[in-house]
């Protein structure tokens, strides 16, 4: 139920969404577009052409100062010390018990590190970083730049062609998980080759007040490439097909990285960091439960929260599920006891109190085609 007294925040592109006829919904305290035309159409546009997302609700936290790197290495579970200039890495902020506070991306930028976190966890991430920097006596400056930063993401196989028309940044040398400062349609941006769709794509960070102009330039230039604006609905189906976790579904404070197939992100060997002790113990013994991919073997769709049965007994829960627009299959992710996680393993999902058969499959469900050799 909506709290009628809560005021929702708007991104700098709010008027653009309304002008495009977007259906707006509350999300993490913001009014956000869930779809403009149809979730399935928008999803397919990202897979085949290029879709444009407004992600300005996300948090951008900037670290600078003499101990910015040391602080970053202490706060997150990955090792930002491995980042080359302009490189980025997927990471997590964990609590001392190893539970995930947020999943995020750390970008090494010219004057320090940029941490981009989920809108819903913005306050928790900021609080954790502020607490760590104060208690740890790090010589680091932490700036919350979220309110003055917009984030526009063109995603899809034609995203590079679209961006190439509007920027003098050499995109052929900008590899995956790399970023560089540059101008796009005359607007100063951090141009990052990152995304949450499983396609090639970019995330453009610019000053909030310049966002409408940048958005309009991308929208009009992209018309002949088949560009469509895309909302949170398709963002969710795209990431699920790509096997990417969503905080609040696959990840939360009770989940540790090893349970969520994210053990490779944790760099225990880098030295002391928050959660190291607890995570080392999990890594030693193995996690108690494991995140698995499921494909339903009949016409039922598995949804978040539905029970998963192994040998007729309730053993786990679905974290996310949908009908995959690209594959036409009913896909889901679920946690199962580690002993029951096995590729090909048969399980049942309870849908409205009736069991429906499903099979454990390898993640991701979808991988984008490799580019043709030149």
């Amino acid at each position: 139920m909506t709290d009628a007294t809560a005021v929702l925040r708007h991104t700098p592109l709010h008027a653009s969404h309304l002008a495009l006829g977007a259906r707006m919904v509350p999300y993490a305290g913001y009014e956000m577009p869930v779809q403009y035309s149809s979730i399935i159409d928008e999803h397919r546009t990202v897979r085949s052409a290029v879709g444009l997302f407004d992600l300005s609700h996300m948090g951008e936290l900037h670290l600078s100062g003499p101990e910015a790197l040391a602080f970053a290495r202490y706060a997150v579970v990955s090792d930002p010390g491995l980042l080359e200039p302009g490189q980025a890495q997927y990471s997590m902020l964990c609590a001392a018990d190893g539970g995930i506070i947020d999943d995020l991306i750390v970008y090494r930028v010219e004057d320090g590190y940029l941490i981009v976190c989920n809108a819903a966890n913005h306050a928790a991430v900021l609080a954790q970083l502020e607490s760590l920097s104060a208690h740890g006596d790090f010589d680091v400056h932490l700036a919350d730049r979220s309110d003055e930063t917009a984030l526009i993401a063109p995603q899809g196989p034609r995203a590079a062609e679209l961006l190439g028309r509007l920027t003098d940044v050499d995109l052929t040398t900008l590899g995956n998980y790399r970023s560089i400062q540059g101008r796009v349609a005359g607007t100063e941006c951090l141009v990052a080759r990152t995304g949450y769709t499983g396609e090639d794509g970019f995330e453009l960070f610019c000053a909030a007040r310049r966002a409408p102009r940048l958005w309009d330039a991308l929208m009009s230039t992209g018309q002949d490439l088949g560009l469509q604006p895309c909302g949170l609905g398709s963002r969710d189906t795209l990431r699920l097909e790509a096997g990417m976790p969503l905080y609040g579904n696959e990840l939360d404070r009770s989940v540790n990285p090893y349970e969520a197939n994210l053990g490779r992100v944790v760099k225990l060997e880098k030295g002391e960091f928050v959660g190291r002790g607890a995570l080392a113990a999990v890594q030693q013994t193995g996690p108690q439960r494991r995140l698995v991919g499921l494909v339903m073997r009949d016409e039922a769709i598995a949804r978040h929260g539905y029970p998963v049965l192994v040998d007729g007994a309730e053993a786990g829960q679905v974290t996310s599920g949908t009908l995959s627009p690209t594959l036409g299959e009913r896909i889901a992710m679920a946690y199962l006891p580690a002993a029951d996680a096995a590729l090909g393993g048969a399980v049942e999902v309870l849908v409205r109190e009736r069991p429906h058969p499903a099979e454990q499959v390898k993640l991701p469900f979808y991988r984008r085609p490799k580019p043709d050799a030149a």
Partner: protein
Amino acid sequence: MSTTPPDDRRYSREHEWVRLEGSVAVIGITSFAADELGDIVYVELPEIGARLAQFASFGVVESVKAVSDLFAPVSGDVAEVNGDLRGSPELLNTDPFGGGWIAKVTLADQAEMDKLLDAAAYVELTAG
């Protein structure tokens, strides 16, 4: 995509419609409901012979994002269901008042139709 609700049927506040063919009631959902749901990807049809009770849930329609209950606009026994919806659930989006009919029910009580809205009243309900 919204179509004007046809005059030849009655409507429930839960956005279902019912059209009488003699003593058989054809039921479905309105274009308003279909538009609200977005892309419909699955319909859980009732069993033949199932007894529906007016305003009680009798099935489910699923969009990409969500699961929604279907509420029977009238009581009766299910005589037929629209098998086309199994392979093409999107018929509920493209033709909710025609080819997207959901089930045919032998009407238990004609008087129940009085509890439903006519097209004009339904239009008013959805305009608000």
